């Protein structure tokens, strides 16, 4: 299966930061932790749709810039007691190049 789409280089994303991929179905945030782990999440907080990519990244979490919800980067789940989930996308890195895999309807639209 070659549904992986290359989106850029790891050096394009600041440590403890994020960049955005625009897709026809909405933005996806690409997060880089202090340990250089990468995560791809729908760039929309389950609370009020805040742009998670603009939040502060700490550990494997990001804090939404609008109302301080904490979201797990690994699962997209809000940290309790808040409840909600942002979609997570497969992501991989090869020689510094980052690729993500999108669900069918987004992929087809590409």
């Amino acid at each position, binding site marked *: 299966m070659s549904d992986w*789409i290359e*989106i*850029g280089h790891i050096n*394009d*994303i*600041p*440590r*403890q*930061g994020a*960049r*955005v*991929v*625009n*897709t*026809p179905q909405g*933005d996806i945030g*690409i997060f880089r*932790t*202090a*340990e250089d782990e990468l995560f791809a999440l729908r760039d929309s907080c389950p609370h*009020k*749709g*805040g*742009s998670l990519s*603009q*939040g*502060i*990244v*700490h*550990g494997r*979490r990001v*804090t939404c*810039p*609008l109302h*301080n919800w*904490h979201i797990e980067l690994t699962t997209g789940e809000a940290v309790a*007691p808040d409840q909600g989930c942002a979609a997570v996308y497969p992501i991989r890195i090869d020689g510094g190049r980052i690729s993500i895999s*999108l669900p069918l309807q*987004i992929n087809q*639209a*590409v």
Partner: protein
Amino acid sequence: MKEKLVLVGNGMAGVRTLEELLKIAPDMYDITVFGAEPYGNYNRIMLSPVLAGEKTINDIILNDRQWYAELNITLHTGKVIARIDRRQRKVMADDGTEAAYDRLLLATGSNPFIIPVPGCDLPGVIGFRDIRDVHTMLDTARSFKHAVVIGGGLLGLEAANGLKLQGMNVTVVHLTDTLMERQLDKVAGQLLQKSLEERGLHFLLATQTEAILGEDRVKGVRFKGGLEIASDLVVMAAGIRPNTLLAKQAGIHCERGIVVNDTLQTYDPRIYAVGECVQHRGQTYGLVAPLFEQAKVCANHLARYGIGRYEGSVTSTKLKVTGIELFSAGDFQGDETTENIVMKDASRGVYKKLVLKDNRIHGAVMYGDTVDGAWYFQLLRDGTDISDFRHTLMFGQAHLGDAGHGGKNAAAAMSDDMEVCGCNGVSKGDIVRAITSKGLFTLDDVRMHTKASASCGSCTGLVEQILASTVGDYSVSTKVRPLCKCTDHPHNHVRKAIHEQHLTSIRAVMDFLEWKSPDGCSSCRPALNYYCLATWPAEARDDPQSRFINERVHANIQKDGTYSVVPRMWGGVTTPNELRAIADVADKFRIPTVKVTGGQRIDLLGVKKEDLPAVWADLNNAGMVSGHAYGKSLRTVKTCVGSEWCRFGTQDSTGLGIRLEQKTWGSWMPHKFKMAVSGCPRNCAEATIKDFGVVCVDSGYELHVGGNGGVKVRATDLLCKVTTPGQVEEYCYAFIQLYREEAHYLERTAPWIERVGLSYVKEKVVEDAGTRLALAGRFRESQRHFQHDPWATEVEERRENYLPIKKLG
């Protein structure tokens, strides 16, 4: 093999310790719990509402049997531990069940004190301590008429109220002449008695019980002096005693309670004790907050973390007895060394007394209106010198200008559908439901679960009242609040370490102070970034990833993810050319909204992130720089037209405002910082609700500090009066620098001044010229490093960060 932990006492303190332990060391112990009662852990404080018919037993269960099963905890209910064998390290229950332990935790609670008068062992004489007592009372109320409650303390009055609501005719007998004399002074006690009498309770005060009458069950009570009254039920609520029987039999040192040290360890190092059964530094406790704090410390040691000490608690009582608001804390009786401030309004049913000693709050009693209880209690715990605001102390913290909760200050009078938190739309019913369904006990819990009072905080007093009345008691301990969950150090320690240890990076601070998380959180990183920059302006390097988004991208994020851009307009003065440039930018980038701000600036709202660098470049080209309308920094200096145009103007307020802004812009602060200069006392620039305000007068300049026009309106305090514009500048820089160096991150000048006291600020900025000059000098030095337009820098160096990494489709 896992070690074995045995808990004796399946109540709130013991089970809370297990919960805390399982949070930090889930697999360390095989755990066995013995409880004398046939239930899981329940909220004992809520027995009163069960008796009153407002709740059922199921409502007050905190941990059901499933909870124990899921965590593989062996639970023995209905078994009383009869003996501890310390040599063989095992406990034995009265039915022969045995359990071996490596660590033993005693949480045996307390017993009601049964007054040893003749007849005290008759059927129908009970305490008010557990579910069985409540059942007895409810059963009795169904078939009998008269009840006597011995003891007019909190527990007794709650029992009396419940029995009355169950239809009984209730008489409360009390030894002294004041109800709840441990929590209330005489006046408040009388107010309480009056309103309880209106609810149909009868009182016999200053009355001593001599005997309980009856043959096979209670028939009546006889008092000293010969009075006899008929009664079918006697509830002994004359106090509780720590239950030390088991520990004493095992030879563990006990006085009034089981004696423990600051790690909650008894004299046998394998045996710990928490809760009402313990005596710590001579004190015993019966309120939730101290018990839970003990639980936390004890769990920490059981998990062998070896840090954390319990150092005792100052408690306050804020209790709801049958819909009556009461609060008391500290020594509220006073003596010859104290003074009182008293307010009494009988027709409103409000009474407040503050006991002061050396200008510090020593104790407080409030009846009818308790919204400021938490504030007084904080002042008491912190030992704050109140002389700076003594004249308004009695009117409370919230006496004027509080927005957001409809002017309500008595939670008891609110209906469930009334809004408590206006920021987050949380009603009283929402809060009560969250507290009861989720088992919340602290303000932080409530904030986390409901968001009530978690935004602006103006309704905190109300939320605390609701917590108090729903949970049953509410108390706070003395513990200094840590900066965030990642550390145990409070702000002051962190600032001190950064200064003394010459720490110039977030990493260095985290390493030196042994941060508990690998790279901090969204609370501590911005604080540490600021502290490093403010302390070491020449050396510390800014970390954009530790800044809130607005400061990272130098614009203000809006709800739809777009940004607002505010160019600086010195002193609120602009030119046709600047206005043209702004209009051109708005047209070119199709900016949907252009609005004038409260700080005399123009706000361009709805700018897309990727357009930000281009928008800034155009504004830069027209000579404008960032207005910092997004940052914890100097925001604006608002001015009036002053002597240049105004017929009342006494000085050149516009010119002075422009100069102040040009000298102070770009400086990062603990929080946002606003200034204003008014040309005369008519004060059109509203300088007296700013962080630093100047009011020009004919003879010079009044300098005002610590004002706020937001959530909690606070008029400034007068710092001093000076005579020249040069002095205004110097005092201004010195004040700003003191705030920058000493306030906690995210603390505005208003709460900072209330915390440290105006006298302290005056001492540094006004009275000591040397200190003032040094502060102003450090501010100027800091400005050499920070007074750069961030927009120009971003356009130059980081333009690509504003673009998507990739556009698909």
